[in-house]
């Protein structure tokens, strides 16, 4: 029996397996990220860091059931100038990390990105769908021109030093084209997708459950939307994709790889299956691959496009 090889390279960064902790989960301190690292994850993503300190929204910020999670945490951040201890902790991690950042204007993205790039993290991820951006939510990830300009501006300051992934939103009719625009502007990879805009109303309370009213949908309910988006993006770009959205089993993982993922972002599965979901998912993937005659995880990427 051939050994199963789950390893891969993401823009030159070696991962033991394709599972990646999605941004916003357990990423407040490097200690918890280190713990996730001990749970068999291939890489971890920091909680997105913004230009200035911002507390996010009051609670409820995160609610969930077996079908979906809904959150409006609101991108709290200490601000990029105040995260020295985190960088320190990150550098000590035994697995690669992805440094996620956001801004509320092109200038702010560039400002944070310049600081990040100088610290040479393995990878940078641009969260382009900021729910409290000045000009309204998702503006960067849902507007072709803005997405292009933003990636251009960021790449101008980061140069060739660090690969930059653009994280896109499903709340648009043309994610494939937006991804292509990001690639043309110099993005080294695409992360797809962020959460879908959603809301839950408590009918006894007669008001939205989340303090911010609107929030982002993640988890199993998001998966069919994520598969479609990743499939769209894969058709339009040649750079690697971190496929994200609703992955909670090995079968889900294989599905998102076949749609076009090279890496796999995983978040809500932590709620559904515990922090060791990464180990579990890798184990299930391996078993499935064995049964179906695959030896390398790379054989799965984009397989549904043949």
């Amino acid at each position, binding site marked *: 029996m051939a050994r199963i090889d789950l390893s891969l390279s993401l823009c030159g960064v070696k991962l033991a397996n394709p599972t990646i902790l999605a941004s*916003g*989960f*357990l990423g*407040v301190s490097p200690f918890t990220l280190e713990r996730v690292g001990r749970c068999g994850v291939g890489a971890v993503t920091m909680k997105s860091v913004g230009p200035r300190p911002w*507390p996010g929204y009051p*609670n409820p910020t995160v609610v*969930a*059931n077996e079908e979906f999670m809904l959150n409006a945490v609101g991108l709290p951040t200490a601000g990029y100038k105040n995260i020295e201890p985190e960088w320190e902790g990150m550098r000590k991690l035994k697995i690669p990390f992805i440094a996620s950042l956001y801004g509320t204007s092109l200038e702010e993205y560039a400002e944070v990105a310049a600081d990040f790039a100088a610290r040479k993290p393995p990878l940078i991820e641009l969260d382009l769908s900021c729910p409290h951006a000045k000009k309204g939510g998702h503006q960067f990830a849902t507007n072709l021109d803005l997405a292009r300009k933003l990636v251009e501006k960021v790449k101008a300051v980061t140069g060739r030093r660090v690969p930059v992934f653009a994280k896109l939103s499903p709340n648009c009719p043309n994610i494939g084209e937006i991804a292509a625009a990001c690639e043309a502007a110099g993005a080294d990879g695409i992360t797809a997708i962020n959460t879908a805009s959603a809301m839950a109303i408590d009918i006894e*309370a*007669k008001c939205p459950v989340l303090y911010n009213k609107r929030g982002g949908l993640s988890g199993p309910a998001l998966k069919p939307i994520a598969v479609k988006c990743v499939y769209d993006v894969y058709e339009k770009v040649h750079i690697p994709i971190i496929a994200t959205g609703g992955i909670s089993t090995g079968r889900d993982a294989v599905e998102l790889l076949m749609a076009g993922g090279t890496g796999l972002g995983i978040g809500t599965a932590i709620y559904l299956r515990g922090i060791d979901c990464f180990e579990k998912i890798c184990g299930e993937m391996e078993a499935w691959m064995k049964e179906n005659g695959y030896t390398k995880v790379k054989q799965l990427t984009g397989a549904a496009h043949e």
Partner: protein
Amino acid sequence: MSERNDFPRMVRVAKVVWENPSTCTILFDERMDVKPGQYVMVWLPRVDEKPMSVTYAGGKGLGFTALVHGETTRKMGALKKGDLVGVRGPYGNWFDFAKAKKALLVGGGVGVPPLAFLAEEMAKKGMRSMFIMGARSKDGLMFEQRIGKAAELRVCTDDGSKGRKARTPELVAEALAGERFDCVYTCGPEIMMKKVFDECEKRGVECQASLERYFKCAFGACGQCCLDDKLVCADGTVFGSAFLRKSSEFGRYSYARTGARITLEEWMKHGM
């Protein structure tokens, strides 16, 4: 269809009881299976959602006890019978007293309620524990009768307005010097708990402390409540000596809502 549901469920207030001038217990006609030390997330629609330790559960209905100080707890204090409040949980682990024979409970301020619940559960199992309750002044004390029925109660206040004029760690040192306890259970301001823990360490007595951090999800996903590599909301809130001993953050650091690491003193002063 769903097995897990972590959306708030609206329940009606059955009763509001003022335990002292600034602390009230909100009771619901709800059966919920809760162990002492567990908490619920309490949602006031359009206001905020806050973690609250469970004070009463089982036959008596569900109850929590809030110290009225900020906006949300002020609104909790204004609740009336029949009002709707959102509840999800119970969450977290609980005080483990399966093996303890003689227990010392140490509660400071609004850390007293979960320990009052614990003392009652211990009494039900035939355990007679000692309970040290501390507050700034007599107006901060609560549940004296309730605890008195279940345990041997010793009271102290910072200003001496009732009981001993002392802080709880002092009484703990005395108690541990005088008697043999299997375990010390504590809940209150973390700086107090750190001192209680230090006393326990001196005597080689096991300690279980219920910790607080800022909570968002309450189910171990968002990472806001981190304490070293633990998630206080789900791995805790109760931590034993083995962890407390090696923790680099217990008694020292917390995380603001922004995610910035701040000292406990800053946390106490400015909150999150």
